[in-house]
């Protein structure tokens, strides 16, 4: 039986300390109210004990001033909690532009991780300390959730779309990765480790790792193997639109709508090509649903994104 008895998980990311502070702040408010109310009630029950079997209480019906006070104070406190929570939430949702990008795919019951340089690992994720890391998450089957308690981050892996989380590790060490969304038999076995290393160690580890080609290289190869090239030529001579610079651009669709081409748009264009047809083209592109794995897909997207220096990312409906 372990002897140490922690109350907090390790604080190993830039947001962890603030998360703990927010937590303690709310603990303080709530402890105050819980103790206050219970103490008051217990005190009244003792003080105003029934002294004779027929005794009745005083004829008091209420007080508007009191009602307003105890409506207003909790309201204000709740709004403070909301404000702080919302600001932290926004920061957790917006990865810095200079973040390095990792790809994580969940499938029953393992996590597959790929580094931009091409190194892959399973149920382990090596990251450098002090550098923001953006993780693009996909799922091959059901819902999962990528959870690293030490970093205080968590995000669902949703089949059919790409989701994102980011963190910046501050402490070298080894921490848990959990799958936090129920996914079946071995949900509790879908765990792993994040290994935070100094930048030098990370470089060394990368160099020692067996690269199976970078994500972009793999994506480029798939682009040829799956004969995407036959339709998507660099100029507009193919049967499909040129994909140069498509990422981040605003695409006009056949039905007159405009969408910004982000990861989920690219994903949908490949897996469910009929959903949005580019203006001026026929919906002849086959769907690659079932032919490319979630990993391949992230690689294809990584490649398409390089087809032009990425413009500021926009988004679309998914």
């Amino acid at each position, binding site marked *: 039986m372990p002897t140490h008895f922690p109350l907090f998980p390790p604080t190993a990311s830039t947001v962890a300390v603030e998360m703990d502070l927010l937590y303690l702040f709310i603990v303080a408010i709530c402890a105050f109210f819980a103790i206050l109310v219970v103490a008051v009630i217990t005190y009244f029950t003792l003080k105003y004990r029934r002294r004779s079997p027929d005794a009745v209480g005083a004829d008091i019906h209420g007080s508007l001033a009191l009602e307003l006070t105890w409506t207003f104070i909790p309201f204000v406190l709740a709004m403070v909690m909301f404000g702080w929570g919302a600001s932290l939430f926004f920061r957790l949702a*917006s990865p810095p532009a200079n973040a390095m990008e990792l790809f994580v795919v969940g499938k029953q019951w393992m996590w597959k991780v790929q580094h931009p340089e091409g190194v892959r690992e399973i149920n382990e994720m090596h990251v450098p300390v002090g550098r923001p890391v953006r993780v693009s998450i996909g799922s091959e089957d059901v819902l999962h959730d990528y959870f690293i308690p030490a970093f205080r981050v968590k995000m669902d892996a949703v089949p059919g779309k790409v989701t994102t989380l980011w963190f910046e590790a501050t402490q070298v060490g080894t921490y848990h990765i959990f799958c936090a969304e129920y996914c079946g038999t071995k949900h509790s076995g879908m765990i792993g480790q994040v290994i935070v290393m100094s930048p030098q160690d990370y470089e060394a580890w990368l160099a020692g790792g067996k690269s199976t080609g970078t994500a972009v290289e793999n994506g480029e190869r798939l682009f040829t193997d799956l004969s995407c090239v036959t339709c998507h030529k660099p100029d507009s001579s193919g049967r499909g639109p040129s994909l140069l610079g498509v990422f981040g651009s605003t695409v006009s669709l056949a039905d007159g709508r405009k969408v910004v081409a982000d990861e989920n748009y690219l994903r949908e264009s490949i897996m469910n090509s009929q959903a949005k047809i580019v203006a001026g083209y026929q919906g002849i592109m086959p769907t690659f649903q079932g032919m490319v794995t979630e990993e391949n897909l992230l690689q294809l997207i990584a490649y398409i994104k390089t087809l032009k220096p990425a413009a*500021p990312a*926009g*988004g679309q409906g*998914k």
Partner: protein
Amino acid sequence: MSNSHTPHIITPASTYVMVFGGLIVLTILTYLAAINDFGALNTPIALGIAVLKASLVVLFFMGVRYNTPLTKVVVVAGFFWLLIMFGLTMGDYVSRSWLGVPGR
């Protein structure tokens, strides 16, 4: 217990027939509107006519027009709750692209 005895109104048959006529006319109208393309207005027109037809049925065939205010509140509340469901859910879907980070 409410003792308000709303006087008993029996709707004349002619009203029913007129409402029926209205419904048929609106059905034809919605068909004609549908085979023409009004662009972005297609859906609002179709829905507008449908709401009109539904209101005719609710008010006359179902007699809400002559019913207690309570019934009216119940009917309106039903549709209002539906709008809550549609509104907040679509609010999510419509705003998904705003931040520009996939999945956020």
